[in-house]
């Protein structure tokens, strides 16, 4: 896959970095807003230290960056230029990437929590078995929705560039006359 397709190379890395960071930041803000509006934010933050919070966020960022890079490896957002077919392909990839993130995130958090708290192995296996399936579905849905949001922004950016190119072209035509 060549760089022009957006899969690898500097532009591919740029695309994966900005898309993954945006998706994580947007998801965090939506989560914060929901927690604040429901009055649950105070209780949730009280149970979370600064360093564990930073570690969990960094882990999630790392997972999101890796999964996004994989999801965009075969064409990237430029796939959206092919219309609904491209969008559908990206949504499916987004679902798979989100499911992977959800499963890996839960497994990592449960594993670290179990090691720190000395939880028994059977309880850990049970939580992992049930939790990973649920986390995969939730992660997949979030991943698919994130792709739809990304596609909307990509379309808006295309409209802006198109409008600018039109006004720039007409400006030059007027100058030539």
């Amino acid at each position, binding site marked *: 896959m060549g760089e022009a397709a957006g899969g690898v190379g500097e532009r591919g890395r740029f695309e994966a970095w900005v898309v993954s960071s945006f998706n994580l930041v947007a998801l965090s803000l939506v989560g914060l807003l929901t927690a604040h509006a429901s009055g649950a934010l105070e209780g949730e933050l009280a149970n979370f230290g600064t360093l564990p919070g930073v570690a969990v*966020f960094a882990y999630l960022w790392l997972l999101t960056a890796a999964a996004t890079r994989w999801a965009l490896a075969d064409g990237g957002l430029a796939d959206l230029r092919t219309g609904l077919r491209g969008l559908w392909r990206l949504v499916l990839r987004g679902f798979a990437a989100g499911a992977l993130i959800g499963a890996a995130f839960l497994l990592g958090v449960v594993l670290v929590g179990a090691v720190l708290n000395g939880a028994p192995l059977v309880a850990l296996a049970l939580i992992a078995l049930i939790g990973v399936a649920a986390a995969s579905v939730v992660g997949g849905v979030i991943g698919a929705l994130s792709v739809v949001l990304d596609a909307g*922004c990509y379309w*808006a*950016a295309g409209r802006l560039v198109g409008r600018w190119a039109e006004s720039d072209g007409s400006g030059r035509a007027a100058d030539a006359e």
Partner: protein
Amino acid sequence: MRERLSRMSAATTLLVRFVHVVGMALVFGGAAFAWATLRAGGPGRADAGGSTASGGDQTPFAALYELVFWAAMGAMVVTGVGNLGALGPPGPSGRWGSLLTAKLLAVTAFVLGSFVRTLVVFRLRRSGPTGSGRSLLAKSYGATAAALLVLVALAEVLAHG
């Protein structure tokens, strides 16, 4: 031992605030610098109508800003939550709670707009000829700097009333 933990906690809180402020300085300073640079011109200076006559591809510079911008935004979200935890977040009702809702909504809208700006840079990098999009990028970074000023004002009101 308790005193040591308390000192560690104070140091962590200070570090979290430092990273938050440095992040804001980076994104605001970078946007203002990009706006000024793109407006001022040099080779391929924007003409009176705002269009670009020739030369001077600015998209690598814009792409560098975008890379730093999203790293800073990620750091600012996590340190912002840390700040809230240290201060004790308000409930949804009341003046402080309403201000926090307004700030979170404004930041969410800003993040959405910023992603569109980033994708404009991305699309110009992919398909634009050399020197393309200077006036569009200048406007985008000007709007980013202006929006950040509003967010800083909201943060000041939230912190000091």
